[in-house]
């Protein structure tokens, strides 16, 4: 058998998957790239008119909504991922010991991740209702005169989206950190104890450095997800009030499927793609072990 024949006989195993990926991802991405250099408006027949880099110039320099939607994504994603890390880390530390009913507690805590974001968004939309919702009712029980319009107030709406995102994704962070904690060998702590380290010192010099990799990995995953953030916005605020919660993916959706400007939407989606790839490369570099 020649080398080529062996190679072919191995390749046939992977071929079907590669074909599917080519047809449904690579081909559309190439199509989309070429589309981004054309004007293509479905309301006026959808003919392709060559535009050069017009769409990109428009998006980067003349469309303030592109920038404000990037800013909104950051304003939602930053605090949200921060809170997820804080709460997730705390919960993982609480769970990393012998606890009565641990596996049941974990299964219950994890449910928000497995429910679809649409369902999560709808649930929270009920809770946020100013008159009939449970959150204002709680606050009133605490003696506040809460008639807050969580989804209609400029600042509260951002908070409302952040809380929902935190509710959905904190369990994921928790599970990842917990898995990281469980992989740290006990001997590390024992030798630290013999060397006279306090438990706080053990935490900051052993636990945190060894958790760096899983934490970076989960932050990267959550950042990519935040750039994709669409479902929760769609059911909670529709980007409102006044565009305050309009994230970049949501704006691209509006341009493409509400205004039907396909060429322009393709250009915006390519800008999103480039940002995602850049972020991923930075994180993969951070995660690579340093050569000493």
């Amino acid at each position: 058998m020649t080398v080529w024949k062996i190679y072919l006989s191995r390749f046939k195993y992977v071929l079907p998957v590669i074909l599917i990926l080519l047809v449904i991802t690579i081909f559309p991405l190439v199509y989309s790239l070429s589309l981004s250099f054309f004007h293509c408006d479905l309301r006026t027949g959808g003919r392709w008119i060559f535009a050069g880099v017009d769409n990109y110039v428009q998006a980067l320099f003349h469309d303030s909504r592109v920038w404000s939607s990037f800013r909104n994504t950051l304003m939602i994603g930053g605090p949200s991922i921060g809170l997820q890390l804080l709460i997730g880390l705390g919960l993982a530390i609480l769970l990393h010991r012998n606890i009565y009913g641990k596996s049941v507690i974990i299964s219950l805590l994890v449910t928000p991740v497995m429910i679809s974001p649409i369902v999560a968004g709808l649930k929270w939309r009920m809770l946020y209702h100013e008159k009939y919702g449970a959150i204002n009712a709680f606050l009133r029980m605490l003696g506040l005169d809460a008639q807050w319009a969580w989804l209609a107030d400029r600042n509260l709406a951002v908070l409302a989206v952040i809380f929902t995102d935190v509710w959905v994704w904190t369990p994921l962070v928790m599970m990842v950190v917990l898995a990281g904690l469980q992989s740290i060998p006990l001997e590390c702590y024992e030798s630290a104890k013999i060397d006279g380290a306090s438990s706080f010192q053990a935490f900051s010099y052993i636990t945190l450095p060894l958790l760096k990799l899983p934490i970076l990995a989960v932050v990267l995953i959550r950042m990519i997800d935040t750039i994709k953030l669409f479902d929760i916005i769609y059911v909670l605020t529709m980007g409102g009030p006044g565009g305050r919660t309009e994230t970049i993916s949501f704006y691209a959706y509006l341009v493409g499927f509400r205004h039907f400007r396909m060429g322009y939407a393709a250009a915006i989606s390519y800008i999103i793609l480039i940002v995602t790839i850049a972020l991923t490369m930075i994180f993969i570099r951070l995660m690579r072990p340093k050569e000493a």
Partner: protein
Amino acid sequence: MRKRTQVLIKAVLIYAGLALALFAALFPIAWTVSTSFKHIGEYYTYPPVWVPREPTLANYQYILYTAGLGYLRNSLVISSLNTLLVLLVSIPAAYGIARFWGGRGSLPFWILSQRMFPPIAVIIPLFLLMRRVGLIDTHLGLVGVYSTFNAAFAVWLLIGFFVEFPKEIEEAAMVDGCTRGSALVRIVLPLISPGIVVTGIFCFIFSCNEFLFALILTREAARTVSVQLSAFLAPTRILWGEMSALIIISIIPIFIMTMAVQKYLVKGLTFGAVKG
């Protein structure tokens, strides 16, 4: 004595923290359950009622009999077909990568990178192409679209199971006269079937939960539960009770499946970036 009080206080704090977390995680679900048993007068009451005073099954009756089961069936058909298709193509691929490329190399990374693409970048061309060939609002269209991101994920997860499987068993079968293909089907697959089931369950849940593609690529005939749920958000009066009933019906199977794959949750949800 002092020491014991300290331990006790610590234990109380730990359980209090966990109780608080459980409350936060489960309250929205409990509220939905409660709303699903309220009639319209009760879920539009000020101040809100915590537990329905006159519990009713009317919402469930509305979902199961009046509204029709079309979208529940659509979700089920699309997710099952997708899971089957994905397993069919990704089992050989994962096997090949694990055996011939040692589970490493650029191929698995390339497959995984498919998962990072923002869906909005793929959906515009897919929408235009599918509109041209008449695949909008068909089961086939969504099954095909979902198969990419699930195939990437499934290959990635399955590689782990194949790499862990001892080569020797397979080689023994081949010495005894099996071809590579029949050794895979008769020996390897039955032994790693738990891994295949876990992968299948994840694919099923992901396709059930997907929203953006379903929203853009379906209209009426192939509308899924996710899209139907978002359609409850009418501008005037939202039927919260009916919507809650549909939410509860649709999350019960997901909940059961989650319990089944609990051991693999971290691995599945991070695409193997973190070992669970």
